[in-house]
């Protein structure tokens, strides 16, 4: 099936006007599959790290959200060990819980949301329960661990 015009346009714009601190490049053999890297935001425990992610646009994109996952290990209450991300806008509205994906969103806005999530972890809506608990119990220690993980895994 031909690649929808929308995906072509989004890709072109991502190339022409990249978001600062975010890089997304489609695979040559599969234009729905993107290699993404996000720079850890300043003043966050992830500062200085470069986090790699994979992003896939499903067949019914933009009716359903892109599938996206961290490849670099990261210590964050909303990201689990498999790199899955708990972010309301990444969830399809089809489910019984009304979540917040909308076809008016795009790859760019989603990546910005993820970058913002790194800057503002939300332990009240956790995906990695142990991390979230630690974040709530002893925030300075959790931040310290996040910094260490960033140094170990996200700084090549």
């Amino acid at each position, binding site marked *: 099936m031909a690649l929808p015009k929308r995906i072509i346009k989004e890709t072109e714009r991502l190339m022409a006007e990249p978001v600062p601190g975010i890089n997304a490049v489609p695979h040559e053999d599969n234009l729905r599959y993107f290699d993404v890297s996000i720079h850890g935001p300043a003043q966050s425990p992830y500062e200085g790290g470069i986090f790699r992610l994979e992003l896939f646009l499903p067949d019914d994109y933009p*009716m359903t959200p892109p599938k996206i996952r961290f490849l670099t290990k990261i210590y964050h209450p909303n990201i689990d060990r498999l790199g899955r991300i708990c972010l309301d806008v990444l969830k399809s509205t089809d489910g019984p819980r009304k979540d917040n994906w909308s076809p008016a969103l795009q790859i760019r806005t989603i990546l910005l949301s993820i970058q913002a999530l790194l800057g503002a972890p939300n332990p009240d809506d956790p995906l990695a329960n142990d991390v979230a608990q630690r974040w709530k119990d002893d925030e300075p220690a959790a931040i310290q661990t996040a910094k260490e993980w960033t140094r170990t895994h996200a700084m090549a």
Partner: protein
Amino acid sequence: MENTEAAPAAQPPPPAQADEADSLTVEGSDVSSLEECDPHVVTRLIQCKNCSRPLHTPVRLPCGNTVCRSCLPPARPRMGITYPAAEGRAEEFTCYWKGTIQCAGEHCVDDCGIDVVLCNMTDVFQEELGFPDSDTEAVEPRQSGQGRTVRWKVGRKDTKKPEAHVAEVGNHGWLRGLYLLAWEGRFPYDAFEITYEAPDEPSQGTEDHYKLQNISLFKKVRNRLRSELDCQVCYTLILDPLTTPCGHTFCRKCIARALNHTDLCPVCRRKVGMPSAMESEPLNRTLANLIELFFHDQLADRREVDAQDELWTDHEKNLPLFVCTLSFPTMPNFLHIFEPRYRLMIRRVVDNGDGKFGMVMYNRRGQSQGEGLGSVPFMQYGTLLVIERYELLPDGRSLVIATGMSRFKVLEASELDGYHVACTERVNDINLAEEERLEATETAAAAIPDPSLGPNAEPPLDSMSTQELFTFLREYVRKQHYAGAPWLHPRVMLAYGPVPRDAARFPWWFASIIPISEEEKYPILSARSVRERLKISARWARELKARDWYFQIEHTYYIAIL
């Protein structure tokens, strides 16, 4: 400046004149030759029918027309309408287009959101045309009596006789000149027989200058407008603009697709009333005309690409049919596929399709299913299902969970490797305005009680408001649940979800679980309004109530033998 002359001819204007002005379309106008572009056509498209000025903060009316927000007619409370029960739906007004084929008359105030795209467009017009061109002023200082004039006629309000008017446009050029006249409120919306007159002895250079000025102005406006006209879903030029009640515009197909997944506006996430009816909503006429006028060529390309895409995704032409049971939109179906022909069909649907197939019920009595079909082994109305989960068992059977998307009517059918393949037509609900009108008409007609029924008889369903029908049904379900009705067992609720709060969805849920025969349920599938479906559901509930007596006896009997 403005002179009013008596109409030169005494003959009455042809009656079609007003209509002609109303149906002013720009189809066939060749935009590529910009000289041909009539300044009046451009101006009129952005004029408000009520105040004749360029649209200011335009609002979209449900009939597809547009007026300034400040020009909305005074609102009054609505009578006889209870569904959808949303705040802000309590007031209505009479449309300026009432009585034309475009509009049935009354609109709900809440449906008239500010048209965001058109708002941005009118800003562009105002910025480009609403101010005198400083370059021209410098080249040629304005001289009174220079003689560049526009003449037009307009029907007098009292006598309906055409009345001739003339106004000078100075050195603004025709496009800007006419826009400024409209902006000053001097150029009426229903003007006709427009003529442009240059001075008697124009120098050729000046004329060319004006012509070029017009063209460059038109181009400039066009370039600026283009960026406002991308659909937020497909990122291309909006095709068949459909504007939601909250004022956001998408291609008709894009918003219809988006609303298969959610009932929220993609841009502002406000609830869009009745998603299933979106495809029968009228197009945004003002936007459609503007796009046609300014982007004629691009629109033609867009249409062509769209038609090609259609070939990829057109289930309607070639939909595999699973002849089995009734199923309903938004509801899950739990299927065990064991027949070899359907194993093949489902495998094909999963492998190279998008997981969509049609579910139709057996035609047990061999009834004729309309022209072109005859006595086929299945019923004519069915449900488009999309596979959510698919589990292939080692022996080739499969377990499938599929959810109802929309309804269709089979137009033609053929066989492919043992299973049926159909050409179908989507069945859509009537639009919101029609839905509301239906309720008002039915309840008004049934308001007079029938004395033969006696005081204790249940009210006829037609006399009940849509909200009352819904409340009655929810109450019925609640009582049955309380009484421990087996069809409301927690396992059933787990599979089909809790009692829907949405009246549009409720009948599908109810039809999925209520213990009556499929033949009895079948009529609800072709009902095209929420009210109709609630009435059918209420009829079932009343019949079941009557049958309950037997059920109780049976129940006691079971307990006795246990």
